[in-house]
């Protein structure tokens, strides 16, 4: 069933509009291609890694790694500690290089799956 009105969903407010548009044929398409913001626009970029950054216990929560991470995959938690989102971390190594207390270690990815 071709739904020519489907594209109008993107007009709605942020919370109501679809996160990802799905169209089956030319008649369903919006008049022009509109893209909506979504995490992972380039795919599951965590797959790119060869080395994985691990924040060690000596971290003094200075926030320098958060400041320098190009991808924005280091997040500050409510208790002040920092965690890395491994789904999208590309393993560039900047956080480990810039950490002033040397408390981030780049560990080679093994055959284990990420948590």
């Amino acid at each position, binding site marked *: 069933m071709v739904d020519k009105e489907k594209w109008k969903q993107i007009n709605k407010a942020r919370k109501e509009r679809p996160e990802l548009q799905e169209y089956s*044929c*030319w008649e369903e398409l919006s008049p*022009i*291609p*509109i*893209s909506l913001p979504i995490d992972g626009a380039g795919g599951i970029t965590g797959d790119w890694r060869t080395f994985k950054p691990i924040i060690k216990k000596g971290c003094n929560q200075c926030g320098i790694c958060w400041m320098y991470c190009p991808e924005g995959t280091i997040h500050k938690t409510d208790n002040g500690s920092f965690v890395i989102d491994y789904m999208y971390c590309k393993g560039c190594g900047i956080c480990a290089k810039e950490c002033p207390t040397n408390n981030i270690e780049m560990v080679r990815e093994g055959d284990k799956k990420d948590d």
Partner: protein
Amino acid sequence: MIKPELKDFLQSEETKIIKGNVAAAYAAKSARVQVISAYPITPQTTVVEKLSELVDGGLMPGTQYIKVESEHSVLASLVGASMAGTRTFTATSGQGLFYMYEMVHWTAGVRLPIVMAIASRGPAPPWNIWADFTDVISCRDTGWMSAFCASHQEIYDEILMSYKVCEDYDVLLPKFVAYGGFILSHTSKPVIIEDQDKVDNFLPPLPDEQGWPHIWIDPNRPLMHGNLIMPSGFYSEFRMKIHDAMIQSKSKIKDVAKEFEKVFGRNYGNGLIQEYKMKDAKVAILNYGDLALQMEEAVDQVREEGYKVGTIKLRHFRPFPVEDIIEVAKKVKILGVMDRATAFGSPTGGPISSEVKTALHGTKGTAMVLPMINGLEGREVTLEQQKEQLKILIKINETGELPEDLLHGTLWHGKLEVKK
């Protein structure tokens, strides 16, 4: 220079004796355009100047006028302004249109309802500033609609009708409104500037805060436009939609022309073409631009000599009125198609004549088409010459003999020959 007086800008119906360019400026004012961006080029300069006078003189409150540094930036800034959800207008000509060609494609790709007045001039080299529609017609494949104006009043009227067609949510395409450089742009005739209330009721309202239905700028509903689509993705299908919208616009153009006649009392045929004395005509010439209007006088005079001739004014080139052309071609035996533009290497050398031939292909009982070209780069075409053109068609109908001086099947009429 006369300093304009600040007065109540709400226009009431008024007949002014003004140049074609100034009529275009008044049409933009009547349409309450919100963003204008323009760059001067002969013969469009007086549009830019008049708009400056109107905007800077406070007669178009709220309208922003961006005085850009090149034509490429003209259309780029209008793309930005239109995407944000505003009604926009500009004017250009010849070389300027060629300079913004990249953005012409972009505008159609984003389907922004921008209306552009074109005071057509011939492409250089050799350097030329006079009437020749090659500039507009060479943008025929870009996805812009295009219309030709034959009179000063038509310039004003067509711009108003264009906003109504372009901003229709089923169309959403940009449009050229073209008229002959110097012939219409710099001569003066009485033009009725309509009452603002009447125009406001005829035109759709200005875009609201939400913007256009298909693209908007709203931090609460962020979107992105223009990223890559792979060949295996929906790229072709999005392009299909542009062509589909353009063909669908034909019925909208007709509806709007009908409504315009009802509201303002001026008739422009069916919107796509306008026939003159075609009921009993044996031969006819299809023409566009101001020469189409002069041709009506030529038809009258030739008819006095006893010949049954007629003329058709082509108002819209994009979308091409295939069905209407087929209908008129069934009425006559010989159809002359007169171009005021060139399409080098095409089947006939003239863009409209090539497309008329394509439109008639496959339908039985239609006229024989004689492609003709005249008036290039603003060369004068007199009434006598137009009568001669009609007589050439009459001769073909009576004797079956084609003129001797055809160039690859096309009659380039009014060639210059200097006798030694």
